[in-house]
């Protein structure tokens, strides 16, 4: 049952599988492509600031898949049917979290290679960037899932989720991009810790939100 649900969720959330699932990836690449046009082809400047831009692009790309991540399945009663089959909201949200991260984390990490080439980032920066994104994207996915399920029953949910994600994702951004400024892996430990905490609590928060949405 868990495998079947994970397969279904992945089929919708993996890039180029469902409609619009490739959007975050394309957005991420587009920001990285536009940045050199905006600040000019100064290799030194791009190398110094490029890492931070990649982080901002990743954070904004995390907002895109939130629309419809949970709301659609609430509307169609999928979680009700799963509950009748003995799957708790927490379990189905944990599965959704895994599928959401797989559909957006690893593709962004892979896309960081061409982006690093476009921005002329050096080896050590790319190394820190990849480690940081690997540690940070699960946290971004967890925040996204919580926000998506809390705003699912609101009319302007999609617009609101973008605004809500930005402040909540700040710690990940500060420590993740901070590692690049100091060229030091130490603060990535903080990123991983924040992600771990968020990933551990997200299924419970999102599950409670799904249950609450039934009462309205």
């Amino acid at each position, binding site marked *: 049952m868990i495998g079947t649900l994970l397969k*279904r969720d992945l089929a919708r959330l993996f890039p180029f599988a469902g409609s619009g699932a490739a959007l975050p990836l394309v957005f991420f690449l587009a920001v990285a492509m536009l940045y050199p046009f905006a600040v000019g082809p100064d290799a030194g400047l791009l190398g110094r600031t490029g890492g931070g831009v990649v982080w901002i692009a990743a954070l904004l790309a995390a907002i895109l898949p939130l629309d419809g991540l949970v709301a659609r399945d609430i509307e169609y*009663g999928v979680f*009700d049917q799963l509950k009748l*089959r003995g799957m708790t909201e927490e379990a189905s949200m944990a599965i959704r979290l895994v599928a959401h991260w797989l559909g957006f984390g690893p593709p962004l990490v892979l896309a960081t290679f061409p982006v690093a080439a476009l921005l002329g980032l050096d080896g050590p920066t790319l190394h820190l960037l990849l480690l940081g994104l690997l540690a940070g994207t699960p946290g971004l996915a967890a925040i996204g899932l919580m926000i998506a399920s809390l705003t699912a029953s609101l009319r302007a949910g999609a617009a609101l989720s973008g605004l809500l994600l930005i402040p909540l994702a700040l710690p990940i951004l500060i420590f993740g991009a901070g590692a690049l400024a100091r060229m030091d892996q130490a603060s990535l430990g903080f990123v991983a810790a924040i992600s771990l905490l968020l990933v551990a609590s997200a299924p419970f928060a999102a599950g409670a939100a799904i249950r609450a949405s039934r009462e309205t």
Partner: protein
Amino acid sequence: MQTRISANDLACRRGDRVLFRGLNLALEAGDALHVTGANGSGKTTLIRALAGLLTPFAGHVQSACAIGLLDERISLDPDLPLGKALEFWERIDGCDDPSEAYQTLGLKALLDIPVRYLSTGQRKRAGLASLVNRHAPIWLLDEPLSGLDAGAIEQVTTLVENHCESGGIALIASHQALSVYGLKTLAIDDYVPQLKHEDAP
């Protein structure tokens, strides 16, 4: 496991308003119950409370076996072809041979069509097929006849009769008259709290 569902002194509310209270029901294997009531009287709420999806305001619900729910939302992915969308639930329910239900409900020709292109009645029939293939002993049906043509209504009646004959329970909330054999009726309006004189302004 005994097929049985019962509700004791059940009360449900929506917002600040108590929809019904003091509702008792007990259904055993083979029972079919038709829940009637005006719009907004709480038929859907009763079904959702019986399914365990809503916490009742008072009283409690007991059931010992799997529940199949059919309401106005059919839980099928609108972008997928009908066959694929139904297959997801069949995998979860462990149903190996879904084709008999497709045949009965006339879905064979629709399996390649994306769910979003289906009409209201066709969607309802797809939801019914999913319910039949779930093989749950308790059926909770919320307006199962809305949008169906005369032929399909007859098929649903037969499906419900067969289900009850083979030891299942069916609880049907509907405005339309039902001609199911041995059908009992529960009028939810009998349990709507009446405003007492001293409460009136």
